[in-house]
């Protein structure tokens, strides 16, 4: 069961994600990203400490995030487990998204 909570702190928006981000849950992740885009933050943190699995549909969500937020905004993935980080890296998305192992606001 995918869950995403939105936390705004100054110019940074953090999405705390948990569960599985797959084809079933990707549409709700897209909706949340739309909400974030309207706030025009300078930084988007995707806190993946609780995320157990990401499928290619989920990675597509990250591509959406990168596109929606524009080039000036930093997108950071934090706390992803080994499998999730490997799936993101394998796609080559680490060139456009910063992947950090631990969370720092």
């Amino acid at each position, binding site marked *: 069961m995918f869950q995403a909570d939105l936390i705004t702190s100054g110019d940074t928006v953090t999405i705390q994600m948990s569960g599985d981000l797959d084809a079933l849950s990707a549409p709700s992740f897209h909706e949340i990203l739309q909400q974030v885009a309207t706030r025009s933050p300078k930084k988007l943190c995707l806190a993946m400490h609780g995320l157990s699995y990401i499928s290619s549909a989920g990675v597509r969500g990250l591509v959406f995030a990168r596109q929606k937020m524009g080039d000036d905004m930093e997108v950071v993935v934090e706390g992803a487990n080994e499998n999730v980080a490997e799936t993101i890296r394998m*796609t*080559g998305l680490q060139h456009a998204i910063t992947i950090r192992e631990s969370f720092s606001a």
Partner: protein
Amino acid sequence: MDELTLLVVEGPEENAAAETHELTRALAECGNRPVLSSGPEVLAGAHDALEPDLLLLHASLTAKEVALFGQKWQHLRTPPGVLLFCGPDHIPLDAHLDHEMDFLVPPFTPTLVRNRLERGHQRRRLARTAAELDPYPSLSLLQHDRDLKIGRQIQQGFLPPELPCPDGWEVATGFEPAREVSGDFYDGFFMAGGRRAAFLVADVCDKGIGAALFMALVRTLLRFSAQNLWAGGALAPFLLPTQQVFLSSPSIGALPLLSTVHGANRYLTANHLQQAYFVTLFFCVTDPDSGRLLYINAGHNPPVLLRASGGHRLLRTTGPAVGLWPDAVFTIASVTLGPSDTLFLYTDGVTEARNAERELFGLPRLVRLLSGMSGAGAGDMVGRTLAEVQAHTGRAPQSDDITMLALRRSR
């Protein structure tokens, strides 16, 4: 099964009465006591107080009458199912074929009739469950089913009927589609007048009809480019990026391979970036005589190269997924398959197959499994891997396509 409340409606056709009688007799033998009626009686409201489980309508009734009768009891918590029936001449059914109706045709033996009633009843209970979950069931379920069907047809239509198999090689594939359509595909074709054989396995991100359409586009782009760039090699340099890295000096097949992947990436990022679809792929060109294989791994799960002497090597990514960045750099790498070496390509439907406890099959397990059968033929390897993955999944639903392609140099 409990006795069902059945309403049998006779049609206006000459033989309808006899055919209706035959059906009601079979229904009675199954322990049911159907209510018999005619079209005008139903329209006049003669049975409005009835709460039927199933309407059995003669196929000589018009499509409009059938639709009206079907709607008449939609206010019930569990509306009745609808089954059309006819005589040995099936022609009256033709008028209803476009409306996705269920049919019951002679012979009306008690066993067959009972079976159809039970299946209809089960389906109706499922429909009720879906209706309770979804406020607009009929529309969304129909659209979903239709999309599934279209997407599946697109996908299946683009898989090659057979793959090239050079002398001294074995080639085997496995494709097990998930219920929800996704965008896996494999392909293979000869190039350079049969001197090279190209193979690829690809996976379009996400699922649904959009992914299937994208898969059709990508497959066409890749195959067309690869085969035509070879014939018209003069075009190839124009499609290459300005900064290109070769891990070794370019050789036969290198330019078409690189130009094809780069050209597809350029086309997709120029025209389809907004849809945020991308495709991961492993694309290789093999020299059947020497066993040398040039490849690009664009963001794809690493194929497993199994050495006949034991040991393995993972052919990891040499570039990002295709369709993400216009200026992406794809690098060609090469490897040589010796006699009895095997290259095993697959999509994430294999390594990400999950059991009821949500545990992944995983790459380490796949490598262990393949390493244990390095002497096996390509077909055997694919078959045993599929069986293992399915055993792991057990009763959990298959969430993604399982696609495999094994290349074995047998001598």
